[in-house]
């Protein structure tokens, strides 16, 4: 059994990669991910972690170097944030389409401009269609556990896909939390050896990243989509295995006092902890409010999600990203899309809050719930509201 210690979440993530016995790290430092890669560099320099650390000149190169490493059969890890994730954007599609299981922690950060290094989920949403598995951690323990799970999931032969483990920049990356760090032997037992079926090998050459003309491209893309959708039961299987081995059970959704609640708050990431405090307060006041947190953003857990909100009358969805000129925050518009064909579906109200590191307080969640109920009763001509902006 691992030891419960006080540790900065960034350091804990780096140590989770070490416990996962990573072979290669290629990364470029960027706020608020810096402490993750600094600590990995320290661990390699001190000899505590026996891995190749490739210092690169950009995030585009970092992800490219990771692809080369993982294609040889090396367990590979990297981390980035915000603008760094944007700079590696085109390579993200290459990782998933070539089925190369790079594991990456993303310290979620707002995107320029105006320049802002603080946390929101604009970067997470901008990469939602890149074909990666995306797991969103709500606290330090979830971040550590899911980095370990990500290796088991991504490298599974039934999956072979890259995985992002999202942690909110500053809210998680720069805070010291109590975290149970698993034992190395336990993690060794949990993550099977990485055995890529068609590695780069001079004895048995293959062509990776080849060209596919119109006669083949759609077939390749359908194969990729079927694969990502099909990863769902394998993700659940590894989470269950993790639960049995470590005593902490994860799923695509996290429920908090949501049983039978008529109004449900929907969140993703670290704001869930504040939202749960708001739910406690509202419950104490006799209000019928619960919370559902989404942990698995890709593949989207449609069945579990529909089941979780089936009995609610109203969903209050809180996004930390904007889809400019679109139907609302990306989270809210996917929630609406997931429910459209349901015969009985709750009303959905969307709020965009917490942009660029603006705190969302307990009172903020109470306000959004109250406003959501008001909109559900009286209607609105807007698809969504940006909460807490000075008029």
């Amino acid at each position, binding site marked *: 059994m691992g030891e419960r210690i006080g540790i900065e979440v960034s350091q804990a993530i780096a140590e989770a990669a070490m416990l996962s016995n990573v072979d290669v790290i290629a990364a470029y430092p960027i706020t608020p991910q810096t402490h993750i890669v600094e600590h990995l560099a320290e661990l390699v320099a001190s000899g505590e972690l026996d891995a190749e650390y490739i210092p690169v000149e950009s995030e585009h190169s970092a992800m490219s170097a990771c692809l080369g490493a993982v294609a040889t059969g090396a367990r590979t890890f990297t981390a980035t944030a915000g603008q760094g994730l944007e700079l590696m954007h085109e390579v993200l599609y290459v990782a998933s*389409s*070539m*089925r*190369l299981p790079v594991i990456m922690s993303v310290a979620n950060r707002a995107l320029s401009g105006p320049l802002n290094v603080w946390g929101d989920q604009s970067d997470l949403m901008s990469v939602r269609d890149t074909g990666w598995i995306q797991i969103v951690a709500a606290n330090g323990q979830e971040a550590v556990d899911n980095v370990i799970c990500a290796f088991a999931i991504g490298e599974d032969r039934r999956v*072979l896909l890259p995985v992002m483990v999202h942690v909110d920049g500053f809210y998680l990356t720069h805070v010291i939390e109590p975290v149970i760090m698993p034992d190395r032997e336990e993690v060794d037992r949990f993550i099977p050896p990485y055995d890529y*079926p*068609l590695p780069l090998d001079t004895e048995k*050459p*293959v*062509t*990776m990243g*080849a060209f*596919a*003309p119109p*006669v*083949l491209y*759609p*077939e*390749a893309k*359908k*194969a990729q989509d*079927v694969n990502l959708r099909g990863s769902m039961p394998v993700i659940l299987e590894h989470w269950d295995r993790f639960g049995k081995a470590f005593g902490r059970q994860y799923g695509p959704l996290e429920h908090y006092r949501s049983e039978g609640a008529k109004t449900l708050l929907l969140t993703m990431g670290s704001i869930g902890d504040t939202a749960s405090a708001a739910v406690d307060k509202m419950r104490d006041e006799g209000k019928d409010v619960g919370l559902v947190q989404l942990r698995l953003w890709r593949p989207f857990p449609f069945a579990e999600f529909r089941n979780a909100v089936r009995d609610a009358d109203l969903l209050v969805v809180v996004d930390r990203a904007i889809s400019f000129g679109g139907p609302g925050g990306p989270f809210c518009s996917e929630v609406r899309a997931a429910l459209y064909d349901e015969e009985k579906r709750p009303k959905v109200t969307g709020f965009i809050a917490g942009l660029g590191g603006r705190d969302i307080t307990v009172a903020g969640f109470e306000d959004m719930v109250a406003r959501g109920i008001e909109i559900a009763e009286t209607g609105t001509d807007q698809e969504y509201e940006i909460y807490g902006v000075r008029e």
Partner: protein
Amino acid sequence: MSKKEDEITWKDIEIGAIVTEPGSTAEYKTGDWRSQAPTYNTDRCIKCGICQVFCPEGCVEQDAGGYFIANMYWCKGCGICARECPTGVITMVEETE
């Protein structure tokens, strides 16, 4: 792969669309791109092979008589052979079909 390109289903696609067979690019019919085709007045041909050297597609082959002729499966009709031929053997002609 034993199947032709247009018979390959999504289930046949190798993991990550990796190509495991060497030389598969030869099946790709770049001749479809062509709008002009080289024609040959072999009376003037000195069999120097300069057209073969300059062909960017590498599709010029020597026939039984020793003449250098482009393979129309791959010839993209770029006209470089016609431009480089020192004796003016090759004329590019619009393909109308």
